[in-house]
């Protein structure tokens, strides 16, 4: 009887675990099934590298949106990653415990703010600021990058912090005993030792930026055109789906699913890169 229970519990957990994996399988199959026909009709190359997006006229080129996603993500990384890493260094190495007990929950709260609120704040604060002080229409790559940079901060900070804290205490002790200053110890011993964790933090943060939709819909301007500067509006892959899915049908809908496939592949590349780097020791 006891043995039977043991066996049964194993099975039950297996079925439950399987259901979460099967959700992934179902979604993948569904997206591919819905989106693949447009690849066949337009051709993968014309779809991915096509410059014109006019679903009404049967033109489905998403290259400007790929550029949009990449530029906004890059901008978010440039702004958010150094800030996040510095913040995690401060928290692990310099902050007195009083400050730590304020900073940590605050950063966790930052992760809990709904993305639509970020977008709204961006629209009424960041966008006008850029328009009035820097130039352009305000709705721009820069605005999206700023919002996304803030949104990826919690991911970058918390994962970097964990990887620095996970270092053996002896590293620091040995470095200090060699006569290194505190900063030399951090820069040349602790950060290199925590490198794989920090890189994973960056990639997960970037993954979040690539996938974000709601916040950037409101601040990017969503124009389907190749941007000439960071002050120009762009549309990303996610916002393309978010904006048009409500009224699309037929080939148009297929094209949006195909956009999803491209996005899916992009994020899969990022995730495998993160896994590869964290596994390598």
């Amino acid at each position: 009887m006891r043995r039977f229970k043991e066996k049964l519990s194993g099975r039950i957990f297996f079925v439950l675990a399987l259901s979460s994996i099967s959700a992934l399988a179902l979604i993948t199959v569904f997206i591919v099934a819905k989106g693949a026909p447009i690849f066949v009709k337009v051709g993968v190359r014309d779809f991915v590298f096509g410059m014109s997006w006019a679903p009404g006229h049967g033109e489905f080129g998403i290259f400007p949106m790929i550029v949009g996603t990449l530029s906004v993500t890059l901008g978010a990384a440039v702004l958010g990653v150094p800030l996040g890493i510095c913040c995690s260094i401060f928290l692990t190495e310099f902050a007195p415990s009083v400050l730590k007990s304020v900073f940590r929950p605050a950063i966790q709260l930052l992760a809990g703010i709904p993305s639509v609120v970020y977008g709204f704040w961006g629209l009424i604060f960041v966008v006008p600021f850029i328009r009035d002080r820097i130039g352009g229409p305000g709705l721009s790559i820069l605005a999206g990058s700023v919002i996304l940079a803030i949104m990826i901060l919690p991911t970058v900070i918390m994962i970097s912090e964990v990887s620095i804290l996970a270092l053996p205490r002896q590293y620091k002790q040995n470095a200090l005993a060699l006569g290194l200053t505190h900063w030399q110890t951090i820069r040349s011993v602790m950060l290199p030792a925590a490198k794989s964790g920090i890189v994973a933090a960056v990639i997960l943060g970037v993954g979040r930026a690539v996938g974000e939709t709601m916040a950037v819909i409101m601040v990017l301007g969503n124009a389907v055109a190749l941007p000439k500067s960071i002050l120009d509006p762009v549309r990303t892959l996610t916002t393309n789906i978010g904006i048009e899915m409500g009224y699309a049908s037929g080939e148009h809908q297929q094209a949006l699913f195909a956009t999803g496939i491209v996005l899916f592949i992009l994020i899969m590349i990022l995730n495998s890169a993160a896994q590869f780097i964290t596994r390598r020791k």
Partner: protein
Amino acid sequence: MSPQPKFVIKNLSFYYGGKRAIHDLSLDIAANEILSVIGPANSGVTTLLRALNRLGDLVPGARMEGEILMDGKSVYDPDVSVTELRRKIGMVFEVPTPLPMSIFDNVAYGPRLIGKANGKSVAESVERVLRKAALWDDVKDRLKTPAMSLSGGQQQRLCFARVLALDPEVVLLDRPCSGLDPISTAKIEESLSQLKEQYTIVVAPHNVQQAARISDRVAFMLTGSLIEENRNVEIFSRPKDQRTSDYVTGRFG
């Protein structure tokens, strides 16, 4: 005995928060000899070693009373640079911790950082200290491989070489052989006895036998107090205190 001791410790007490780890300890440490500090766990041996290079400062709530003079000057003097002090007083720890870089860089790291060495002279000094630490023959063909690929005993000798590369005056070793194989232990002990000509060496051995093998003088500590300090032979054959006798003969500890 040399005229001027390397360290003079006067009435040292060391506290972690409210807990007293060392109680009113006075001890002279002579230059160019090996002093072993022995005692059971929680006797304050590690704390004493870390007070000398001020690594104890790093523990939150740590506080000391009394005086530690090195060459007649207090190591806690406000104008003493802690980083300079720690370069003069190298330390090898119980757990070997190579830095996350190659074997060569582990040793060259310190000298490069303080701008002591460049180009060819780095390579020479790396070889010199690796020989001193009895590691050169093990690693001479793979200096560029990560230090993590070495065995535990080799890693510990690497840490020893890394300390010597900074050209210290004093070397502290806190249970340096506790996790090591007998061959590595023997190599480290042998290099210690050769190196005392150049350095002042303070060891906290992981057992009494090691103290008997390697030291010129032995200090015995118990619950934060210094019980007895004398030449090696005296401690092991004619201890003055009953507790010393009980400890070195293995009746407790």
